[in-house]
């Protein structure tokens, strides 16, 4: 066990692409935790999806040695969907490294996380990264940081995670400036779980930070929120190779394995204590609530049971998504799933397809509505097709979020235009510097989960950044828009939009579907309707001619290949009545141009 004054616990706060994973790699290398031979890029991002997308999804931790000190580095998820996980990771730290790209400047989510760190009284060590690049403007960005966060430019470190320049100085600053943890080893155990994942051989492996007391192998642990007791099988630290230790004391970070089979029993934010001398729960636990919902259906109805099994297994590893069976007239048997946000939804879907080999149809995402019925009862609607008709309902309420957008000045106009279109309410606008502005809007979450982020990025050439937090429910004038294929309403295409925009939405949806649905053997009429009234119509004209394979010289194989290709193509489409609908049509609403 390391004495408290030689321990440091910290996270890195950075925007995507600002170099967090590269910095973590350099730390591993410079402190000798990983030899140059073993080094691979983005060492701590262990999932394929994490490396491909260049973002961290799961929190990771590693123990580093520097100048006779032990530094516990906690790598946090890098996306707004996982804000709660970030807040728990920060709760496990005394300080943070704020890493800012010296040519980009600070971004919205970084700022939000910094505010969170300040609220938690964490020490901020700020560093400007990528100073080796020609576009770097360290002076301008330093001014911005000083203005926004009150960190003097003189305290900023200038580094390049890529070349290694300034890294030892940064580690020195961490040791010198971030206070050591406090804690009482003789007090009852209080440990905070800030990440859990499921290992098929070991069961649930949880990352834990000990605040008070000690966590021993063989101890009987009490999981306070889950209200359950488990015996510790193994305690260890990540060097970054998992290495068992006899115990973890106050201020130490490591992992614990206690025979749990389901991460839902060891959620992020959970407090562990001992069964014999239980301590109180640490503050700040939240049961993460899904914000975005969609239907997931197997393309091939025969894969329903496999999908259910895969969801069960995936949930062992990710307790923040929910699923329950639902039936769609168009898509058959499937599941209504809830996610923390859009990225989370994409990741779950991608993992199901990739790791479990399923071919899925995902319906357009939606939020959870509250319908105040005529008799005063409240109904929660997480599927647009379940929206009651207007004469049954008094009011419909939808969730709102407070968004913060940071942007270069020249894009303010186009961003405000976008936010107005999406029924936004301007709350605040503040110049961070002469070049950059912070804008705050209240927006319906339903508008944000559609393609808001993509629109924001494309309108600002990628320069604007976004963060949001929940602001509760508000009454809105909403209407359900139905889509009919070949005269039959397809429930999976229904969506809820503001009444004033229903006509426009219906028209754009119909013309988008006309592009996405390939010509087939028959004419396919596509209609949009509100309350039974058709508001838009297009037709996909029947295909008149295919490739007419020749059967020449007895070479049947050529024709067979053509037929096989056609059959394969059909298997990837969902058959609705006699219409073949490609998977991407179900998320057409996500790519409607304004």
């Amino acid at each position, binding site marked *: 066990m390391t004495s408290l004054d030689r321990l440091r616990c910290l996270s890195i706060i950075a925007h995507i692409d600002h170099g967090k994973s590269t910095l973590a790699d350099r730390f591993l290398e410079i402190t000798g935790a990983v030899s140059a031979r073993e080094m691979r890029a983005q060492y701590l991002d262990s999932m394929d999806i994490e490396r491909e997308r260049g973002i961290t999804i799961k929190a990771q931790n590693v123990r580093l040695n520097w100048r006779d000190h032990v530094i516990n580095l906690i790598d946090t998820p890098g996306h707004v969907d996982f804000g709660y996980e970030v807040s728990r990771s920060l709760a496990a730290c005394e300080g943070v490294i704020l890493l800012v790209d010296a040519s980009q400047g600070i971004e919205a989510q970084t700022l939000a996380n910094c505010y969170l760190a300040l609220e938690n009284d964490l020490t901020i060590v700020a560093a400007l990264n990528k100073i080796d690049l020609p576009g770097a403007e360290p002076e301008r960005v330093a001014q911005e940081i000083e203005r926004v966060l009150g960190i003097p430019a003189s305290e900023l470190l200038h580094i390049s995670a890529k070349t290694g320049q300034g890294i030892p100085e940064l580690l020195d600053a961490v040791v010198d400036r971030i206070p050591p943890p406090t804690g009482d080893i003789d007090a009852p155990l209080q440990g905070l779980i800030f990440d859990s994942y499921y290992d098929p051989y070991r069961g649930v492996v949880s990352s834990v930070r000990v605040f008070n007391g000690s966590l021993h192998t063989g101890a009987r642990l009490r999981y306070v929120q889950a209200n359950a007791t488990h015996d510790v099988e193994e305690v260890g630290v990540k060097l970054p190779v998992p290495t068992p230790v006899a115990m973890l004391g106050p201020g130490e970070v490591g992992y614990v394995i206690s025979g749990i089979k389901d991460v839902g029993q060891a959620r992020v934010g959970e407090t562990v204590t001992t069964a014999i001398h239980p301590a109180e729960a640490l503050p700040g636990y939240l049961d993460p609530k899904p914000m975005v919902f969609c239907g997931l259906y197997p393309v091939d109805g025969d894969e329903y049971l496999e999908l259910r099994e895969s969801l069960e297994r995936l949930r062992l590893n990710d307790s923040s998504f929910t699923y329950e069976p639902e039936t769609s007239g168009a898509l058959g048997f499937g599941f209504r799933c809830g996610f923390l946000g859009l990225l989370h939804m994409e990741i779950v879907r991608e993992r199901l397809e990739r790791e479990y080999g399923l071919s899925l149809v995902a319906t357009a995402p939606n939020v959870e509505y509250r319908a105040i019925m005529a008799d005063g009862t409240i109904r929660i609607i997480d599927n647009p097709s379940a929206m009651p008709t207007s004469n049954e309902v008094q009011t419909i309420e939808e969730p709102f979020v407070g968004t913060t957008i940071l942007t270069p000045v020249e894009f303010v106009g186009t961003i405000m235009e976008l936010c107005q279109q999406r029924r936004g309410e301007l709350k605040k606008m503040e110049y961070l510097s002469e070049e950059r502005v912070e804008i705050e809007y209240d927006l319906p979450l339903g508008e944000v989960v559609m393609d808001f982020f993509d629109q924001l990025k494309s309108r600002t050439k990628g320069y604007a950044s976004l963060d949001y937090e929940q602001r509760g429910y508000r009454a809105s004038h909403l209407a359900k828009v139905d889509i009919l294929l070949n005269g039959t309403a397809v429930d999976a295409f229904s969506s809820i939009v503001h009444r004033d925009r229903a006509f426009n939405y219906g028209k754009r949806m119909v013309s988008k579907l006309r592009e996405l649905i390939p010509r087939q053997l028959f004419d396919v009429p596509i209609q949009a309707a509100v309350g039974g009234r058709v508001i838009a119509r297009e037709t996909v004209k029947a*295909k008149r001619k295919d490739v007419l394979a020749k059967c020449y010289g007895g070479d049947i194989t050529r024709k067979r290949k053509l037929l096989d290709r056609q059959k394969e193509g059909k298997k990837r489409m969902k058959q609705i009545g006699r219409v073949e609908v490609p998977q991407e049509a179900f998320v057409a609403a996500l790519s409607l141009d304004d």
Partner: protein
Amino acid sequence: MEPDADKDLGVPQAPVDDWFAPLDLTPDAFGTYVHIPFCSHRCDYCDFATWADRSHLIDDYVDACVKDIYRQRSEGLRDATSIFFGGGTPSLLSGDQLARILSAIPRTASAEITVECNPDAADAQRLDAYAQAGVNRLSFGVQSLEPRVLAALGRTHNPENVLLAVTNARAAGIKRLNLDLIYGTPGESIDDWRATLEGVIALAPEHISAYALTVEPATPFGQRVASGEEGPDDDRQADAYLLAEGLLKAAGYNWYEISNWSLAGEECRHNLVYWLGGDFATVGCAAHGHSGGRRWWNVRTPERFIERVEAGRDAISGSEEIEAGLRLEEAFSLRLRTRAGVTPSEAADSVVRDLIDGGLAKWVPSAAGAAGPRESEARRALVLTPQGRLVATDVTARLLLAGAAVR
């Protein structure tokens, strides 16, 4: 004949059309195909196994063909009811060369013997020699009667050659002629196509084939289209196909396979062997053979063929046994391309109903032999309409995925 009513499917009874005359193989049907992989010039759209620079090999190739036929005879080669010389350009063979190969092939007395010819290689002397050797059917690669279209296809002949070729063939006593056409060449207007069809009909062949120009990637034409040049347009080709069906039918030519029409009883017997699941032997490089569910194909180049045969071996490069399920599906998909039609299983009833409602297929009375699982209903067959033939691949895929060929 009274068709079988089926109220379940709500099938309106089609009038008994004379062109639905039965299409079937005789019990002794057996084809022998001879591949001649030489051309004097390679057409821009062609991706068949043929070479324009190897005519020095022709003598050796003919020797090898004869030798291979004798080898096959020693293994019990059956008498052919049809023999087909395809290519390439079989008309590059002299009368003697052709006669040497043909006389080696065992055949029935009434066998159909076809040679594919280029219209500009159809001189009277050659065709006389072919007829002397026993050839009784010629297939001319006419493609178009519009000089501009012929040029666009990279063909070397002109419309006058076609007239002369037909005259020479008739003079040589060849009773059965096929004229091959291609439609949908970029630059070919619907009026060009009409003129070609009318011109060909005026030549009174017994058989006409009309193929949609298809872009094959590994051809000069395919590369031009890939680099942005105009390719064939599906909708215009559909118009051209329907025009062909209309004009040919009015002139007495009955449709019997996607791209083939003939006067009554003048269907190409050799092609029917392929399409109705018959057995066929093969001679020459890159050619395919079939016997009772086993398929094989020969080595691809003429050099390899000559080498293998000279070494006293067969020329087979690969083969496959077609398992029962696949055989059913293949028989189903091949017959659906013909007017013999199919009898889909009940599993596909809703697809069948959609096809009929959509005007893509119809029920017709059928003597016997429609491929499919419902043998009790073999007196009725599902046959594609002209609109349905144009999307035959899609229709077939839908039916097969619905289990139409499953017993």
